[in-house]
C-alpha cells in the first residue's frame, strides 16, 4: 500500500508518494493560483509515474489550500503545523527549533523535553506579508532580479540597510529608495533577508530561544542562500549572547540544518500520520470528483459563496445616484474671471507627487484650480503653479497660504503669508462647505487620513504609516489591468450582482487574492466591485484603527481623489450607515483640491488682520535664481538609508546663508533641501542640529514641562541628601 502526502500551499503544490516510509515519487510546482488544476495534474502523474492506485492507496492533504480539495479527493485533511511537526519528530529527534517560511505565511515550532516525550509550542503568522517569501520575491521582481540569481545572492559580508520588516509594500518602497540612491541590489537583497529573519525572531519566538539543532524548512529557506546565511548569523549571535552551548554530540556544521527535502516536510508528515491511521481512512478514490469540481463545481460554488453586489436593486441604485451621482466636482469657473484686476487669494498644496493651487475671491468663491505633477524640485513646482495662475489672468494676490509637504520650505522663498498644516487645511475646507462635519475621511492614492472634528478643530487624526492597506492605489492598478478608465470604474462595478469576498488587511495578499478570485471565474466587473466593497473596512478598521464609528460622529465628509470613484462612495455609504444608521455622508465637492481650498480660506482669515501680503510677485518667482548641489556632502547621514539629498540654494536678498555648512552658503542665499525621505533629512547635519537644539533649549527653559522635571530628577538621589 502506498501513502501519498499532498501539500497545497499558497504558491506551490508539493507531493510525496511513499511505500513503507520509503519515498517513491515526489515533486513540487508553482500553481499560479490554479490550485485545483495543479492538484489534478499531480494526481494524474502520481498515478502514472508513482503507482498511486485508486481504491487501494491512501492520501492525506495539508496546506492552506487543501481545505476544499481534501473532500474532493477523498483524502484526510491534516493541519499543516501538525504535519510538519510529525515529520520533524520522526526525522530529527534532536531538533529544538523549526522555522518554516512559506509564500504567504511563516511558522515556528519549538520542541522541548516534557513529561512524556517532547512538548511543542507552535506559532504561526499568515495575516501579513512581513517576514514571508512573498515579502522577498515581490521586491526582487520589482528590482528585476531573476529567481535563479536571487537564490544565489549572499547575505554574509554585505552592508545592511534599514528596510521595513513589517510590510511588503513599504519594504518595496524602502528598497526602491535605496536603489535610487545608489545602493547595489546585492545589499538591498541582503537587507531583505535581514528583515525576514528579524521579523520571524521578533514576532514568532514569544519568549522561547531557538536552540540548536535548528531546522529551516520551506521554499524560501531552502532556495535563498542569503536567507540561510542570515539565519546563521542571527542564531549564532543569539546563542553566544544567551550562552547556549551546542550539544557536544553535534558537529558545528550541523547546528543549522537545511535538508534537501525542506520543501516536502509537510508531505512527509502526512505520510507519517497516515501510517498510524486506521485502515480505511483517506483511501484515495481517484480524480472523478476533482475533475467535476474543476469543470463544473467551482462555478456553482462561486454563485453560492459570493456576497451581494454593491447595488442591491434598481431602487438602491436610483436612490444612490440621486444622492451622490450628480456632478461631484463642479468645475470652478476656469479662465480669466470677469474682474481679474480684483485682488485674489491663493492657496497652494505642495504634495509629494503633485502640486495644486486654487484661486479664490475674497468672498470665498472658487475661481480657478491648477494642478501640476511634482518633479521633485519644489522651486520648479512653485514656478509652474504661479506661471499658470498668471496665465489665467490673475494679477494681484492679496493673500497667499501654503500647505502640504513643501509648505515650510517654500514659505519664505515665495513670500507666503501663512503656512498651514494639512489637517487644518482639510478641516477648514470641509467646515467651509459643511459647518456641522464630524469626521473627514481622506483617501488618496497612497495614504489614508481620518480626521475627527470637535469644536471646529481636528481633535483626532489617523494616518496609515506602518501598513499600506486601505489606500486607493489598488483600485487604479486593477482598473489598469482590466483596461478600464478610472472614470468608468463605478459603471463597471455597479454591474456586478454578486461579488467575491476579499480579505480585509494586507495589501500584498489582497493582490494575490485578486488573482485567486479571478481564477475562480469572477469577472473584472465583479472583482472591481469587491475591491471597492472591501476598501471601507481597510480604511476605517485596518488603517484607521477606528472600531467605533458612532463615537466619532454622524456627519462624514469623504474627500481625496479615491472618492471621485462612485463605487467607493457607494461602499463607504453602506459601510458607514451600517455602523451609524443616522449618519449623513457627503462627498466634498472638490475632493481633490480640498487642501488647497483650505489653505486659501486660511489666507482669507489672515487677510482680515489687515496686513499686506508678503507675496514676492510673479516676476520674482519666475526669475528665482538657484543652484542645485548633489554630492557626498549633501548625503543625509541621520540614518543608514543615506538619502542622496539635493541642496537647492536660492538667491534672496535677506537670505542668512549657512557659513557653518559643509556646503557653505553666503549671505544673500537661502537653502531648500529636497530628496530626503523623512522629515529628519530637512536638517542638514549635526551642525544645524546644534543650532536648532540650542534654540529649542531656550524655548524649553522659558516654558517648563513637569515631565522634564520627573525625567531629570525623580530617579536621582535628592540633591540635599547627597
Amino acid at each position: 500500500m502506498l501513502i501519498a502526502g499532498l501539500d497545497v500551499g499558497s504558491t506551490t503544490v508539493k507531493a510525496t508518494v511513499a511505500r513503507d516510509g520509503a519515498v517513491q515519487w515526489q515533486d513540487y510546482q508553482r500553481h499560479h493560483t490554479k490550485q485545483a488544476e495543479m492538484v489534478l495534474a499531480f494526481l494524474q502523474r502520481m498515478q502514472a509515474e508513482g503507482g498511486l492506485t485508486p481504491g487501494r492507496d491512501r492520501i492525506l492533504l495539508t496546506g492552506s489550500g487543501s481545505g476544499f480539495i481534501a473532500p474532493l479527493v477523498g483524502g484526510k485533511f491534516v493541519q499543516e503545523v501538525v504535519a510538519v511537526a510529525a515529520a520533524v519528530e520522526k526525522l530529527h529527534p534532536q531538533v529544538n527549533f523549526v522555522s518554516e517560511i512559506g509564500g504567504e505565511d511563516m511558522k515556528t515550532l519549538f520542541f522541548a523535553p516534557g513529561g512524556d516525550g517532547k512538548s511543542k509550542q507552535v506559532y504561526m503568522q499568515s495575516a501579513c506579508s512581513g517576514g514571508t517569501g512573498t515579502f522577498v520575491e515581490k521586491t526582487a521582481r520589482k528590482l528585476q532580479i531573476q529567481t535563479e540569481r536571487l537564490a544565489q545572492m549572499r547575505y554574509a559580508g554585505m552592508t545592511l540597510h534599514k528596510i521595513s520588516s513589517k510590510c511588503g509594500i513599504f519594504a518595496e518602497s524602502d528598497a526602491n529608495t535605496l536603489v535610487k540612491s545608489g545602493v547595489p541590489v546585492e545589499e538591498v537583497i541582503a537587507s531583505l533577508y535581514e528583515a525576514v529573519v528579524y521579523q520571524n525572531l521578533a514576532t514568532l519566538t514569544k519568549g522561547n530561544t531557538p536552540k540548536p539543532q535548528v531546522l529551516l524548512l520551506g521554499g524560501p529557506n531552502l532556495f535563498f542562500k542569503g536567507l540561510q546565511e542570515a539565519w546563521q548569523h542571527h542564531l549564532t549571535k543569539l546563542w553566544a549572547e544567551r550562552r547556549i552551548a551546542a550539544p557536544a554530540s553535534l558537529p558545528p556544521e550541523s547546528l543549522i540544518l537545511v535538508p534537501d527535502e525542506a520543501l516536502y516536510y509537510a508531505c512527509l508528515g502526512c505520510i507519517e500520520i497516515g501510517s498510524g491511521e486506521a485502515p480505511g481512512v483517506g483511501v484515495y478514490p481517484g480524480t472523478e470528483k476533482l475533475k467535476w469540481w474543476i469543470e463544473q463545481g467551482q462555478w456553482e460554488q462561486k454563485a453560492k459563496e459570493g456576497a451581494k453586489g454593491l447595488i442591491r436593486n434598481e431602487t438602491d441604485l436610483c436612490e444612490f445616484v440621486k444622492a451622490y451621482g450628480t456632478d461631484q466636482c463642479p468645475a470652478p469657473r476656469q479662465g480669466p474671471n470677469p474682474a481679474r484686476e480684483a485682488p485674489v487669494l491663493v492657496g497652494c498644496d505642495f504634495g509629494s507627487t503633485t502640486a495644486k493651487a486654487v484661486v479664490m475671491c475674497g468672498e470665498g468663491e472658487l475661481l480657478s484650480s491648477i494642478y501640476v505633477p511634482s518633479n521633485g524640485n519644489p522651486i520648479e513646482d512653485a514656478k509652474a503653479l504661479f506661471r499658470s495662475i498668471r496665465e489665467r489672468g490673475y494679477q494681484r494676490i492679496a493673500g497667499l497660504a501654503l500647505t502640504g509637504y513643501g509648505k515650510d520650505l517654500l514659505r519664505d522663498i515665495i513670500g507666503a503669508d501663512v503656512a498651514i498644516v494639512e489637517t487644518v487645511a482639510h478641516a477648514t475646507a470641509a467646515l467651509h462647505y459643511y459647518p456641522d462635519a464630524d469626521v473627514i475621511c481622506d483617501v488618496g492614492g497612497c495614504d489614508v487620513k481620518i480626521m475627527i472634528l470637535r469644536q471646529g478643530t481636528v481633535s483626532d487624526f489617523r494616518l496609515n504609516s506602518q501598513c499600506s492597506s486601505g489606500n486607493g492605489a489598488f483600485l487604479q492598478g486593477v482598473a489598469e489591468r482590466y483596461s478600464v478608465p478610472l472614470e468608468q470604474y463605478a459603471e463597471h462595478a455597479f454591474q456586478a450582482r454578486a461579488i467575491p469576498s476579499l480579505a480585509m488587511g494586507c495589501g500584498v495578499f489582497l493582490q494575490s487574492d485578486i488573482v485567486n478570485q479571478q481564477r475562480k471565474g469572477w469577472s473584472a466587473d465583479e472583482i472591481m466591485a469587491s475591491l471597492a466593497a472591501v476598501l471601507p473596512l481597510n480604511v476605517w478598521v485596518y488603517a484607521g484603527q477606528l472600531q467605533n464609528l458612532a463615537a466619532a460622529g454622524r456627519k462624514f465628509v469623504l474627500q481625496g481623489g479615491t472618492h471621485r470613484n462612485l463605487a467607493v462612495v457607494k461602499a463607504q455609504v453602506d459601510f458607514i450607515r451600517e455602523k451609524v444608521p443616522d449618519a449623513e455622508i457627503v462627498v466634498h465637492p472638490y475632493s481633490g483640491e480640498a487642501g488647497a481650498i483650505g489653505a486659501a480660506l486660511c489666507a482669507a482669515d489672515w487677510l482680515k488682520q489687515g496686513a499686506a501680503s508678503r507675496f514676492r510677485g510673479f516676476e520674482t518667482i519666475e526669475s528665482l535664481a538657484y543652484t542645485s548641489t548633489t554630492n557626498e556632502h549633501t548625503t543625509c547621514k541621520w540614518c543608514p538609508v543615506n538619502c542622496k539629498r539635493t541642496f537647492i540654494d536660492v538667491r534672496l536678498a535677506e537670505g542668512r546663508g549657512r557659513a557653518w555648512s559643509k556646503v557653505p552658503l553666503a549671505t544673500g542665499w537661502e537653502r531648500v533641501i529636497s530628496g530626503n525621505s523623512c522629515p529628519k533629512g530637512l536638517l542638514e547635519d549635526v551642525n544645524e542640529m546644534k543650532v536648532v537644539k540650542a534654540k529649542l533649549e531656550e524655548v524649553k527653559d522659558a516654558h517648563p514641562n513637569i515631565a522634564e522635571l520627573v525625567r531629570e530628577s525623580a530617579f536621582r538621589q535628592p540633591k540635599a541628601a547627597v
Partner: protein
Amino acid sequence: MKAPSGSLRLRFSPGRGKAPETIAPEPPATAKPRGELRVGIPRVLNLWSTHQFWIGFLNALGIDGRHIEFSSDTSEEQAREFGKGRGTVDCCYPVKCISGHFGELIANRKRKIDLLFSPMVYSLPSYLNGHVAASLTCPRVMAAPENIKAGFLKEKDVFAEHGIRYAAPLVSLADAPLVPKQLYEGLKDAIAGLTLGETKQATRAGFDALEVFNRAARAKSRAILEQCAREGRPALLVVARPYHMDPGIGHEIETDLQAYGYPVLWAQYLPTDGDLLEWMFRPDIEAGHIRSGLDIADVWPSSYSANTNEILWGAKFAARMPWIACVVRLSSYECGMDQPTYSPVQQIVERSGTLFFSFQDLDSTKPAGSVKIRVETIAHYLQKYAAEIIAKKVAAGPEGCPLAARRE
C-alpha cells in the same frame, strides 16, 4: 516517542514540568553587606510615580544612592538588544517593554547588580486618597513583574546564572501600615540583617522623600500657572498615566508641543493647595455634587483606580482652570483601563470650551509622521483660539482666583 495522533487539535504545552537545561548556580548564600549591595530597578510603570519612595526607602536601609541602578528609558533598541525573544503574550506595551529593562539591568557588566528589585505595586499613594473609593493599580500592571520574570526563567534561570537575586514584593502603597511588613517579607533574604523595625523606619523615610518631591513638583506647577495668569498666556495639561512620561512610551509628544512655547503640566502633579481647591470647587461643594475639592464622585463614582482617578480629576481641574487652554490625552494601545474614560474625560474638558486632543493607541514605534502633523495642528488651534478660551473661562469662573490675586 509516541506516534503522532493525527488529531486536528494541537496541544499547546505551556512548558510545565520541563527539566532545566543547565544546573543553575547557587544563588548567593548570604546577601552582600549593604554598603556593597547594588540594586537594579526597572524604570517602568508605577515607578514613574513612586520613584523617590524607593530611593528614600533604600537609602534609609543604608544602601548608597550610587548603588541604585535604574534601567534607562524605554526604547526599541533596548527591547531589540536586551528583551529579544523574551516578550510576553500581552498587548500592553508598557508591560511588554519590561523584558528589555530586566535584560538591560542583568546585562550591565560595568555596574553589576546583586538584586533585581521590581515591586508589584498593588495600590498607590495618590493625592486623592481619602476622597476616592480606592487607589489601586491596574491588575495587569501589578502582575507585570511576574509575567516578565517568566521569560527569564522559562528555559533556564537567567538571574541565577548572573548571580542576581530577584525580589518582587507585593506592596500596597496606599495602605501605609501594611507596607513595612510586605517589604520586610519580600526583602529579608536579599538585604543582610534586615529587621522589621528598620523596614518600618525606612518606609517612613520613603514616603517622606516622595512627599518632598511631589510637593516641589506641585509648587512648580502652581508657579507655572501663576505666571500664565500674570501674563495671560496658555498652558497645556497632559492627562495620561505616569509612565507616559517615559520617552519610549509617551514618545515625548508633549515635548514637541512645549517647543512651540507652551508650558506643560501633568495631571499627577497639579497643585492641590487649599486656596485653589476652594476657588475652583466651592460652587460644586455647595451644590452638593461633591464633598471636597478632591472628590470625583460627580464624574467617576467607581473611583477605584489611582491613575484613572487622577486622570479624571485632572480633567475637572482643566475644565475650571482658565489658563489651561488645551488638554492632551495620551493612551497606550488597547489599554483596558483607559477605554471607559475616553468619553467622560473628553466631555468634561470640552464642555468648558477647552481644546482637547487625544493620542490613542501609542505603541512601541513613534508614528513620527502623524505626530508631527498632529502637533502642528494643535499648535495652530492653540495659537488661534487660546486667548479667546482663556477670556471665556475667566469670565465663567468665580471671582477672586488665588492665582491672579497674587499678582499684587
